[in-house]
C-alpha cells in the first residue's frame, strides 16, 4: 500500500513541467494554411475560441470585432512549425492544439502540394490524426474568421457538418490519417471536402461544395456535390442520403437505406477493365408524374428509374476521375492487395492504365417502402378517369 501511495504521489510530480493554465492558454479550434502573398512563404492562421468574449488580447491581428467569440492569429513564415512558434512568441498566451477541430488548406496551396504540411501534423505530439481536413475554395483563413450564425465557432461548425455527412458514409470526411494513408498507398488519390464561404446580405455561410481530387499530394480537380455522392456510392458502405431520378415530368426522390458496391479490376492484355456492382435498398420519398404507369408496374418502373440514375451518375463520376488521372476508388490498391505479383507488373503504368480503363456498372436496386401513399394524386386521378 505504501508503494502504491508512493507511486501515486511521486510520479505525478513530474507533470509540473507541463502545466497548462487555462488563463494562459489559447485553445485552437481551427487551423488554416494559405499561400502567402510573398513568394515561397506560408500564411498560418489559428482560430482561437475566446474564454472571455469581450476581452482584448495582446496577440490579436485578425481584425476581429470585440464581440466575436473567436479571434484569428496569423503569421507568415516559410513553414507551418515556424508559423505556430512565431504566433506563440507574439502572443500573451500559449497556443494549445489538441482541441483543434478542423484543418483547412487554401486552394492555391493545395495545388502546390500538401505532403510537407502533413509532416508536422503527424510529428507534433499535440496534434491529432483524427482531425477533419477540408480545402477552402479561395482563402482558408477567411473561413476561420466567418460568423456563420449557427455555431459560435466556425471551425466547430464545419467539423460538425462534415461529421454529420460522415454518418452517411465515412468517405464524405477525410481525416489527416485517411489522407496520409492514401498518399502512402502509392496509387490512390485522396479526396477532400471543399468548403465554400458565401456572403449574402451581410450574412456569411459556409457549406460543403463537392470534393477536391488530388493526384499524389497535389490538387488536380474537383467533384461536384452530385459527383461526390456517386463517388461515395462507388466506395460502398453507404447508410443514408437521397437522390432524384427520372426525366421530364416523371421524377422520383429516393432515400438510400443502404448501398454497397463491389469493385473488381481485371487486366485484359494491355488494358484494364473495371466492374462496379452496386447493390442498394431504397425507400421512396416523393413521386412526381408517372401518371401513365399502372399501379402493378409502379415498383418495377421506379426500380428501373433508380437503377438507371445510379448507373449514369457512377459512370459520369468515373469519367471525371479518369479525365483527371486520379484513382479515387483505390483500384490500384485492390490489385496490389489481391495479387502483389500482378501489381508489380502494372504499377509503373498504372496512371496510364487507369486513364484508359473501361468501366462496367451493374446496379441492383430494391425498393422496400413507398411511404404512406401507394399512388400519386395524378395516378389516382388517371386511374379514376380510366375506370
Amino acid at each position, binding site marked *: 500500500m505504501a508503494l*502504491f501511495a508512493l507511486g501515486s504521489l511521486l510520479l505525478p510530480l513530474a507533470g509540473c513541467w507541463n502545466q497548462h493554465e487555462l488563463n494562459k492558454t489559447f485553445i485552437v479550434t481551427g487551423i488554416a494554411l494559405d499561400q502567402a502573398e510573398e513568394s515561397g512563404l506560408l500564411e498560418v492562421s489559428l482560430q482561437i475560441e475566446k474564454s472571455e468574449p469581450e476581452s482584448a488580447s495582446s496577440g490579436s491581428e485578425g481584425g476581429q470585432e470585440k464581440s466575436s467569440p473567436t479571434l484569428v492569429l496569423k503569421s507568415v513564415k516559410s513553414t507551418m512549425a515556424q508559423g505556430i512558434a512565431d504566433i506563440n512568441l507574439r502572443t500573451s498566451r500559449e497556443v494549445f492544439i489538441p482541441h483543434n477541430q478542423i484543418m483547412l488548406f487554401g486552394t492555391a496551396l493545395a495545388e502546390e502540394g500538401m505532403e510537407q504540411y502533413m509532416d508536422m501534423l503527424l510529428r507534433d505530439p499535440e496534434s491529432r490524426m483524427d482531425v477533419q481536413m477540408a480545402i477552402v475554395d479561395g482563402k482558408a483563413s477567411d473561413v476561420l474568421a466567418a460568423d456563420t450564425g449557427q455555431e459560435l465557432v466556425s471551425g466547430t461548425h464545419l467539423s460538425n457538418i462534415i461529421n454529420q455527412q460522415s454518418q452517411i458514409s465515412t468517405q464524405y470526411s477525410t481525416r489527416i*490519417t485517411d489522407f496520409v494513408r492514401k498518399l502512402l498507398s502509392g496509387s490512390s488519390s485522396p479526396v477532400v471536402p471543399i468548403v465554400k464561404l458565401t456572403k449574402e446580405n451581410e450574412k456569411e455561410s459556409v457549406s460543403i461544395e463537392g470534393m477536391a481530387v488530388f493526384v499524389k499530394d497535389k490538387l488536380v480537380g474537383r467533384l461536384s456535390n452530385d459527383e461526390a455522392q456517386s463517388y461515395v456510392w462507388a466506395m460502398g458502405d453507404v447508410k443514408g442520403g437521397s437522390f432524384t431520378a427520372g426525366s421530364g415530368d416523371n421524377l422520383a426522390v429516393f432515400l438510400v437505406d443502404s448501398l454497397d458496391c463491389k469493385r473488381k479490376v481485371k487486366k485484359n492484355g494491355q488494358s484494364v477493365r473495371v466492374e462496379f456492382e452496386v447493390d442498394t435498398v431504397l425507400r421512396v420519398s416523393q413521386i412526381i408524374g408517372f401518371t401513365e404507369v399502372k399501379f402493378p408496374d409502379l415498383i418495377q418502373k421506379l426500380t428501373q428509374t433508380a437503377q438507371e440514375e445510379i448507373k449514369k451518375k457512377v459512370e459520369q463520376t468515373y469519367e471525371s476521375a479518369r479525365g483527371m488521372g486520379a484513382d479515387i476508388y483505390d483500384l490500384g490498391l485492390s490489385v496490389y492487395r489481391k495479387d502483389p505479383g500482378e501489381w508489380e507488373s502494372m504499377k509503373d503504368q498504372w496512371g496510364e492504365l487507369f486513364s484508359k480503363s473501361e468501366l462496367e456498372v451493374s446496379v441492383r436496386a430494391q425498393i422496400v417502402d413507398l411511404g404512406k401513399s401507394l399512388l400519386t394524386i395524378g395516378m389516382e386521378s388517371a386511374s379514376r378517369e380510366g375506370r
Partner: protein
Amino acid sequence: MRVDKEQISGVRFMFTIVLYLESSALLTGFLIPVTRHESWLTVLSGLIVSIPVIALFRAIMLMFPDMNLIQVLERVFGPVLGKVLGLSYIWWFLNLTSLNLRDLGDLTKIVILKDTPALVLMVLCIIVTSYAVRYGIKVVTWYSALFMTLGFAILAISVLLVMNQIRFENFLPVFSLPIKKYLHSTHMISTIPLGELMVIMMMTPNVRMSRKDATKYIFGGYFLGGATLLITIIRDIGVLGPTMGLFALPSLMTLRLVRLGEALSRMEILFAIALISQLAFKVMFLHYISVITIAQMFNVRDYKRISLVTGALVIAYGLTLYDNIVDHAVSAQVFAPVFWVIFEMLIPLIVFVTAKLRKLPEIRGT
C-alpha cells in the same frame, strides 16, 4: 546462499510472466519497418518458434529448483567460468532494465509530459522501484494480478472502441515479402521480448510450485502474454494500415483515434497512464532481478542496501545507451536480435546440455 528468501505462489508467478509480456506490447512497433502489415504473422510465428526456448527455461528451472541462474552457472561451469558468465548476465540485466527505463521516459514524454526532462521521469520511477525492491519478490510482484487484469481490460476495451475503424483490407496481401524479412521479424520478436523471459530463471527458488504446476504456470503465462502481443498488433494494423510504419508508438496512435461521438474521444490519456503503469512494473521487476543478480554474484547478504545504488547505475547507463529514439530502433532491429541470442538461448542451451552430460542431479520440484 540465497539472496531473497521470500517465495511467491505459482499463480502470481504466472501473472508476472503475463504482465512482463503485456508491458512489452508497445515494442511491437520495432517489427513494422521490417514486415509492415504482415507483422502479426511474425508475432504468431515467433510465439510458436519460441516454445522450445521457453521449454528450455522450464527444464533448467526444474533441474535446479533451489538455485537461481547465477548459482546454476557456477554449479554447471565451475566457479571461474560461472562467475564470468554471471558477470555478463549482470551487464545484460542492467542493460534490459536501463532500456526499459529509457522506454518509459520516452513514452511518457511523447504521450503526456513533453516538456519534462526524461531524467526526472527516470529518477522518480527508480525511487519508487528501489523502494519496492527493498521489500523483496513479494512486494515487487504484489500488483501483478491487478495490472495484468488492467492490461486485459485496456486491450479488450480499446479493441471494442476502434472496432469501427478496423479494416480487413489493411491485412492484405499476405506472404508478399521475401522470406528473409519474415525470418528477421520472427527472430526479433523471439528475442525482444519473448526470449527476455529467461529472467524468470533468476526467480526459481522464490517460486512455490510443483513440476506439473511449472508447465501450467510458465506456459499459461507465456500464451496469455503472447496473445496480448498478437491482439495488440492485429488491432494496430487493422486501424492504422500503411501509416503504422510512420510512428514510434503505433499503439498510442491507435488509441488516439478512438472516437465514438464527442463523449467517447480523446481518451488515450487513460490508456496511456495504464500502459505507463505496466511499463513501470516491468522496470521494477527487472530492477529487482538486477539487484539480486548483483547480490548473488558478490555475496551481498543484505541485498536491500544495493537497491538504490543499482537504480542510480541503471539511470546513468540508461542515459548513455543511445543518443535518440532512431538509434534505439535501429539497435532493436539489427544489434539486439543477434547479440541477445547469446544470453537468451545459447548460454541456457549450453547450461542444459552440459548439465545433462555431467549428469547433474535432477532435483525434485519444490
